[in-house]
């Protein structure tokens, strides 16, 4: 072949030229092939989509968070038109000023190309200084127009930068882990370090602008968005191109502060007055409704709006989004939140290429009557008097310096027939104004812990409030008969006269003697119920009493849609239950604790005879409950037992010997007045005075018992009162009320008057009419 070529082309030079020429043809063919491969087929379509995708700009459309309404449709929380001003992240960080300066510097490309690196840097620096000055001017304008002040705007900017950078670092680590799992080998952080969506987004700088403020800001933005080349605008105008007005995302709580008029004529005589008092209560329902906060990086990481290599999740979160922090705003977040809309606009043509409309969040209807809630909160305010230590709270030997001490506690009111929670008040209250301006004051108060919802999140030893349940167990199981007398010798255990005593024996040295179940409830005998516990253990089943308590709903949550709901305790948990445990559980001591919500639920089950009745806070949409397993309706308590309990409680509130009958104002007991004084209803009450053991106050908020002064070894008892209210004419009680006042003393004396005022409130709000009108 070589010789053939030589024959054809005798000149070596020409043959070499041919070689070079053919090489050129081959190389060009390779390049043509590579260009063909790129410009045809799937890769071309993908590249076309990708490059044309750069012509799209994305606009997010805000959604409306669902409202929270009370049982009568009053708005407790809703998004209202309120304007926010958001600024692009690059402006917040100052990066925008640099980019603009570079763009401006390069605008005269010839001059730019004629410059050396040092000259270019200097030119950019010079231009940047002016841009940065104008950025600061824009932020100053925002601060002044919105009235929030420059310092707060600066703080806000710093927080945004910090949180975006935190999120970026966090997401990169998450992506790194994902990548490592996928590849099965270590991956350097740099390999996954892609820009996150928040770096190219706008962030809210000021909120809650009124119409006049909005118009002013809109004017600046309009100037910046004049059509045409941005280079024709002044620097100041150009900054405003990066500013967005947004609406409506302001969460308002219109019933947060309510003015309440309180009748004082029915108060215990030292506080009574013919003049009603008007009080303004703040933070009404806050423990239930909750509050909002900005998303944290963990929230965003759990359900991010921006997903690597995927379409955005419109239900997902971005930094700066609002989400529930506590209460229903948190636990019903998925229902309330809704989904953003998204609109893609072609920057070239201005046409909307695609649009997904936002999905508004669902409204939530509560069982709460917010006016009743406010009323109960007002009467439980220390300034009203009942929730301060009063002389009748204290025994004759008590420390007089305790007088006037504010008390904390909770009250829950439930409609027995429906299970609707009409009010659930926790004191001290937490006003939203304080929460917004100085949240640490509320979140980091170790003594009063105002952010704890004591109505359902803090379990207490229930004391004698469990005795009616023990009576129901004993009668229903046949270990006690109606009218059967049981001898109460003053103390339960013959060889231990100083423990497990009746209060009467402790006070007078005399036993109750032979009493029946009704009297035992009315006079709150410990020994009687200790004997009942023993009978249940010996004759039925060792753990029969805890089994009944479980049927009444103790030791479990009721899934009322609040994540902070506590199950309390039923049993020792970490060891086997002992005989003495059960004996103590009969009188609400030992290894049992519960919340006021659990107590009213237990009484509602008792009165209604329906052991599956659940309390209800959210009426609509119905919240999902736990794994529901079909079970046949368990047998309820025997009607005889219920009748005995109700009679015992009625006598407890209405006879001289009842523990919830009266309070005394002198040591002799001669000067007394009844606790309950509501006309037109029958009140059945049971008090509870529970020994809390010791009290731990986490003064240094470290979650550990590490200081001697954090332990109070002899605190006062928790005071309980449970009331069943039966309007005249009604066949059975219609409402149950539970009140607990922590570290306050005797249940009847401390919690009783509070419960009485709540019954007055129920009557005032027309819940105690028969037939019912509400």
């Amino acid at each position: 072949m070589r010789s053939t070529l030589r024959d054809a082309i005798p000149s070596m030079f020409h043959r070499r030229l041919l070689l070079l020429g053919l090489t050129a043809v081959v190389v060009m063919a390779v390049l043509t092939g590579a260009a063909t491969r790129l410009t045809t087929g799937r890769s071309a379509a993908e590249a076309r989509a990708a490059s044309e995708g750069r012509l799209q700009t994305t606009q997010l459309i805000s959604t409306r968070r669902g409202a929270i309404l009370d049982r009568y449709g009053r708005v407790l929380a809703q998004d209202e038109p309120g304007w926010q001003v958001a600024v692009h992240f690059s402006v917040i960080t100052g990066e925008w000023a640099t980019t603009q300066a570079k763009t401006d510097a390069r605008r005269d490309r010839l001059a730019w190309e004629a410059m050396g690196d040092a000259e270019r840097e200097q030119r950019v620096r010079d231009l940047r200084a002016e841009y940065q000055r104008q950025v600061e001017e824009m932020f100053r304008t925002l601060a002044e127009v919105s009235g929030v002040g420059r310092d707060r705007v600066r703080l806000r900017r710093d927080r945004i930068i910090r949180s975006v950078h935190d999120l970026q670092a966090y997401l990169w680590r998450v992506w790194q882990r994902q990548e490592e799992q996928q590849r099965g080998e270590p991956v350097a952080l740099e390999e996954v370090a892609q820009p996150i969506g928040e770096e190219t987004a706008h962030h809210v700088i000021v909120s809650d602008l009124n119409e006049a403020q909005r118009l002013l800001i809109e004017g600046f933005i309009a100037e910046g968005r004049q059509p045409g080349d941005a280079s024709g605008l002044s620097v100041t105008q150009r900054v405003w191109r990066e500013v967005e007005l947004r609406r409506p995302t302001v969460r308002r709580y219109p019933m947060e502060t309510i003015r309440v008029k309180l009748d004082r004529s029915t108060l215990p005589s030292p506080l009574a007055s013919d003049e009603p008092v008007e009080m303004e209560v703040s933070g009404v329902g806050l423990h239930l409704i909750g509050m909002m906060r900005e998303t944290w990086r963990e929230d965003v990481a759990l359900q991010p709006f921006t997903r690597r290599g995927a379409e955005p999740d419109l239900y997902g979160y971005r930094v700066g989004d609002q989400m529930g922090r506590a209460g229903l705003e948190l636990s019903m977040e998925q229902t309330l939140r809704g989904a953003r809309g998204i609109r893609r606009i072609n920057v070239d043509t201005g046409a909307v290429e695609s649009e997904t409309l936002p999905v508004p969040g669902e409204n939530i209807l509560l069982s709460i009557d917010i006016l009743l809630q406010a009323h109960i909160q007002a009467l439980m305010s220390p300034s009203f008097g009942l929730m301060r230590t009063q002389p009748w709270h204290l025994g004759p030997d008590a420390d007089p310096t305790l007088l006037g001490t504010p008390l904390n506690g909770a009250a829950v009111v439930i409609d027995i027939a429906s299970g609707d929670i009409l009010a659930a008040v926790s004191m001290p209250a937490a006003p939203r104004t304080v929460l917004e301006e100085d949240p640490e004051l509320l979140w980091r108060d170790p003594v009063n812990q105002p952010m704890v919802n004591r109505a359902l999140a803090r379990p207490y030893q229930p004391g004698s409030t469990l005795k009616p349940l023990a009576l129901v167990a004993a009668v229903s199981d046949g270990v006690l008969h109606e009218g059967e007398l049981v001898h109460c010798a003053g103390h339960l255990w013959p060889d231990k006269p100083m423990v497990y005593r009746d209060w009467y024996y402790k006070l007078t040295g005399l036993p109750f003697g032979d009493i029946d179940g009704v009297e035992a409830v009315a006079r709150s005998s410990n020994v009687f119920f200790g004997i009942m516990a023993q009978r249940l253990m010996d004759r039925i089943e060792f753990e029969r009493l805890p089994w009944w308590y479980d049927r009444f709903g103790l030791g479990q949550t009721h899934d009322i849609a609040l994540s902070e709901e506590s199950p309390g305790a039923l049993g020792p948990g970490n060891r086997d239950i002992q005989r003495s445990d059960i004996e103590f559980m009969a009188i609400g001591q030992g290894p049992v604790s519960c919340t006021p919500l659990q107590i009213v639920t237990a009484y509602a089950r008792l009165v209604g005879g329906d052991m599956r009745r659940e309390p209800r806070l959210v009426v609509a949409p119905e919240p999902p409950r736990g794994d529901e397993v079909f079970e046949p309706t368990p047998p309820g308590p025997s009607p005889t037992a219920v009748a005995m309990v109700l009679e015992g409680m009625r006598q407890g509130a209405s006879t001289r010997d009842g523990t919830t009958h009266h309070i005394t104002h002198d040591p002799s007991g001669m000067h007394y007045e009844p606790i309950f004084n509501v006309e037109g209803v029958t009140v059945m009450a049971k008090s509870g005075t529970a020994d809390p053991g010791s009290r731990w106050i986490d003064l240094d908020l470290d979650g550990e018992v590490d200081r001697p002064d954090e332990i109070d070894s002899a605190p006062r008892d928790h005071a309980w009162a449970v009331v069943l209210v039966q309007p005249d004419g009604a066949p059975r009680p219609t409402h149950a009320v539970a009140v607990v006042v922590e570290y306050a003393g005797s249940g009847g004396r401390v919690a009783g008057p509070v419960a009485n005022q709540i019954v007055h409130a129920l009557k005032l709000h027309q819940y105690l009419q028969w037939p019912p009108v509400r």
Partner: protein
Amino acid sequence: MQITFQQFVDQLKLLARPNPAWYALGAAVLLTVVGVAAIGTVSEQHAGIQGQRWLIVALIGMACAILPHPRWLGNMAYPAMGVALALLVFVILPFAPRSIVPIRNGSTAWINLGFMMFQPSEMAKVSLILAIAWYLRHRETHRRLLGLLVPFGIMFVPLALILKEPDLGSALLLPPALFAMLVAAGAKLRHLATLLGIGIAVVAINAAVVLWAPDSVQVLKPHQRVRIESLYYQVIGDERMVHEEGYQQDVAMRLVAAGGLTGYGKERASTIIEYNKLPFDHNDMIFPVIVNRWGLVGASGVLALYLVLIGSILTVAARSKDPFARLSCVGFAGLIFSQATINIAMTLGLMPITGITLPFISYGGSSLLFTFIMVGLVINFASRRPQLLSRPSFEFDKGKGKGKAVLQ
């Protein structure tokens, strides 16, 4: 050397005779027109200057290159090389005034002449080719392996100075041009293959070191390393460097691919290129602009024009009897071909990104001037009458095989 009026008139008459160089000129002008239109897609301002200023300057330069006799040009090759080397030394002097030798993109590759930014490396490329052609014209020493030392030595001087600027892109063009000249000059292919093999091995080892060796043994500079890394990751489909070092290449390839068969047209392509933020869109990255605007059809047309250009220049070399003209033409063809190939290959993802313009098409006065000077020289060589009784050049296989001795 004096050119008499009669000689000038004779030369003009010779130029008027049809010859293959006219195809080269036609291809060069068409490529320049395509270039102006492509530049106009991304910057009307640059297109205006390229078409109205640099093209005229380049054509004047070309006209000047047409006239001198090749022998005179040969005599001037070494002095021109000397001037080019002096300028290359001047730009790398640390105390060179920055008003005259500014630092641009980290490189001191330009001299500010006031009316234009002059790139000595462009002059060095042309003068090097002329110098080597002058050196090799009557020699046989390059047929021995050691005899290759001198031409390579001549090349390494400007190569080292250009690398010192640093301007890797321009430096990369010198070896292929020299190789083409040595091939044409009759150097033994096995010698050249050995050298090429060594070169490829060095590149491969370097790439392997960059990709898999620890930092402590790296010899390349960090910015050179990341270019190799980004190409490697792009080739294996790993997008880790797409947003950083590989960004430029990624955007270039995306815009090429998006061009499809026929491209977007001017307005649409202009918008798409702007929003895709293609860096250096009017000079180094002009090929993606061409494909995005005119598609594969446009790209093929440009490649075809380069083939016509290269083919025409090589034909001029083939028809010429003057060894200096022959080798110069081969050198020019090799230089233009290598530059176009490297530029296009990097935008297609076949080579790492480096700063290199597309001849005749990219914006730039120096580049356009010296490429047209090369075309002018080719026309010059093509228009000369072959000297009678001239000795055949670079014919080293007389009497071998069955071929007859060549009489020219």
